[in-house]
C-alpha cells in the first residue's frame, strides 16, 4: 500500500522531462558560456580533438549535477505532502531551479574570489535556501506566473533532443578515456 502511494507520487514522464529540461538548460547554458569564455586560449595550444575532450568532461559534470538536482525534486515529490510538491511538481521544481541556480550565477559572477565567497557561511547558505524555498512557493501561487512557468517548461523539452545525445556522446568519451 505504502509502495503504491509512493509510486503514485512520482511525476509523469512528461512532467519529469519538462523539469529535467529546464535544469539542464540553465546548467548547460552557463557551462557553455564559460566554455566559450576560455575557448580562445585553448585554441592557442589544443587541437580540435582535445577541445572536444575538454567539452566532454564539462558536459558530463553538467549531466551529473543536473541529475542530482532532478533527484532532489523527485525525493521531495515522494516524501513531502502531495499538496506541497507533487501536485505542483513542474512549476515548483522550475521556480526552485531558476531561483537557486540564478542565485548561484549571481554569486559566481560577483564574487569570483574565494576570499569573500558568500556561500562559505552556513548561516548565509541556510538563510538564502529558506528564502528561495519560500519565494518559490509564493511565486507558484500566482496563477499567471505558474502558467508562464508551465509554458516555459513545455517548450524547454525541445532542448532535450540536443542535450541527451550530446551528453551520451560526452559520457562515452569520458568513460572510454578513463577505462581504457
Amino acid at each position, binding site marked *: 500500500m505504502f509502495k503504491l502511494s509512493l509510486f503514485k507520487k512520482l511525476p509523469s514522464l512528461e512532467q519529469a522531462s519538462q523539469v529535467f529540461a529546464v535544469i539542464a538548460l540553465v546548467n548547460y547554458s552557463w557551462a557553455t558560456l564559460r566554455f566559450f569564455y576560455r575557448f580562445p586560449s585553448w585554441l592557442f595550444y*589544443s587541437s580540435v580533438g582535445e577541445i572536444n575532450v*575538454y567539452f566532454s568532461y564539462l558536459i558530463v559534470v553538467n549531466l551529473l*549535477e543536473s541529475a542530482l538536482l532532478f533527484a532532489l525534486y523527485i525525493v521531495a515529490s515522494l516524501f513531502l505532502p502531495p499538496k506541497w510538491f507533487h501536485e505542483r511538481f513542474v512549476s515548483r521544481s522550475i521556480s526552485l531551479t531558476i531561483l537557486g*541556480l540564478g542565485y548561484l550565477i549571481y554569486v559566481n559572477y560577483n564574487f569570483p574570489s*574565494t576570499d569573500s565567497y558568500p556561500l562559505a557561511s552556513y548561516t548565509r547558505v541556510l538563510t538564502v535556501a529558506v528564502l528561495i524555498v519560500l519565494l518559490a512557493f509564493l511565486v507558484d501561487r500566482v496563477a499567471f506566473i505558474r502558467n508562464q512557468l508551465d509554458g516555459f517548461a513545455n517548450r524547454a523539452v525541445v532542448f532535450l533532443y540536443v542535450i541527451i545525445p550530446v551528453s551520451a556522446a560526452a559520457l562515452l568519451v569520458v568513460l572510454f578515456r578513463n577505462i581504457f
Partner: protein
Amino acid sequence: MNRRDFLKLTGAAAPALLLPGVISKLRSPRKQSPPPNVIVIVFDAMSARNLSVYGYARRTSPNLERFAERATVYHAHYTGGNFTIPGVSTLLTGTYPWTHRAINQSGAIEGSIVENSIFRAFGDEYHRVAFPQSVWSSFIVTQFVRDLDWILPSGSFSEVDYLLNEHFRNDQNRAARILDDFVFVPNEAPASLVFGSLQKALYARDLAQIDSDGYPRGLPHNANYPLQFRLESLFDGLASLLQHLESPFITYLHLFPPHAPYRATEKFYSTFVDGFKPLRKPQHRFADTFSNTDLNDARRSYDEYIASLDWEFGRLMDAMNSSGIFDNSYVVITSDHGEMFERGEKAHSTPLLYDPVVHIPLLISVPSQISRKDIYSPTSAVDLLPTLTQLTGRPIPNWCEGTLLPGLGGKEGERRSIFVVEAKMNSAFRPLTMATVAIRKGNHKLIHYTGYEAEDSFELYDLSEDREELEDLYPGQPSFANQLKEELLESLFKANKPYIK
C-alpha cells in the same frame, strides 16, 4: 610527518605499488652497488638574483650556500622560458620552447616531443617518480605518464587539497586541464554551477578556518588552485619520500614555493626590514606600472619567503645527509624561471627577458662530493638532460638541444649560444611572430622583441660590465651586435620553418 601526511603518502603509495614496473623493482634482487640516484629539486619562480649564494645583498639562502660547499655552482644558468610551462618543458625534454611548443599559459608539449623526456631517456631500469606540487608543472609532468612509475598528487603533504585530477589515473592530464584548471577553478566563476559552487564554498570555509599559526601572511598556497600547505610538512614529507624510494631512482620534485603569494614563516617575517634599496631602473614600455614602493615591498616579501624556504631546505639536507642519500645520488637544485621586481614589472607574467626573470640557480652535487666548484660559462636548462643521462652512463639522446654542462663532462669557456623564448601570446601551431627571444653568448645578451609593435626592436647588454642591464648597447651598433642579431634571427627562422605554410 604527522599521521595525516603518513596516511596520504601511504594512500598514494598503495596504487603505485600495483604498477608492474614498481613490482618488478621490488622483486628484483638488490644489487651490490646500484647505479646512482638522481634527485632534481625545482623551486618554482626562484630567481638566482635574489639568492645570497649568488651574491645577493640580503642573506636569503645560507643553507643553499652550505649545499654549494659540496656542489658545482653554475653562475650564469638560464631557463628556457619565463614561466612554468615552457621552463619545465625545456628542463624535462632538453629542447627549447620553439621546439617543444609548450609556450602558452597552461600549454602543452607537442605530441611527438612527449616521447623525448628525461624519464624516457633514463628507461625502466630506474624507478621514475615525479612530484609536481606546482599544478602548472603537473600539466606537463602528466604528459609523461607512460614513462613514469609514480606521480605523487600535487596535494601530497598539504593541509587543504581539493584537486581532482589525481582521481583520473588513466586520463590525468586532461582531467587536470579541464576539471582543475577550468570547471572547478576557485578564483574564477566555476563552469559547474552546482558542484563548482559547492567545492568553492567548502574551500573558502576551509581557508577561513585553517590554522595558519606560524605564517603571519597566511599559509602558502597556489593562488589559482585549491591547495594550501605548510613548508615544514612539505619538507618532512619529502625527506620521508626520499628515504623510502627504491634505488636506483630518478625523482623530479617540483615545489611550488617561492612562487607568489609570498608567505614567509614567522621566523623570517620582517627579517629584511633593513633599509636595503634595490637599484632603481627605468620603466619599460612593455612592463606593468607598479610603483617602486610596491616593487620593493613585494621584493622584501619574496626574499623573506625564500629565506623561509631555505631554512626548510636546510632541514631536508640534514635528513638526506644522515640517511646517506648524498653518497649515492646526484642532487640537482634549480628553478623553472625567475621573478622580477623592477622597471614597473612584478613577478614573471611579462614579455620581458631581463636576467632576474630568466637567470635561475643551478647547483649539482655529485655522489660523495665534498668540495665546491664554480662555473661561470653561460648554461641552459636544455643542458640538464644530456648531462644527467651521460653521468649515469646513458647515451645522450640525439633529439636533445643541449650540451654537457661544464665541469660535468662539458668544457668551460666555450662560446656557445643559448636561448630564452617567451611567446605566450603566440599560437603553438604557428610560427613565432609575437614573441621575445634572447640569445646569450659569452658576456653579451641580445633581446629581440617581435610582433608587439609596428617594428621589431632589439636590446643588447654586456653582462660582464653591466650586470643590471641598464646600458643598451644596441643603438651604437657594435660589430658583434649584428653577428648576434643574425644568429638569433636565423635560429628563429629555423625554428619557425616547420610551421610556415
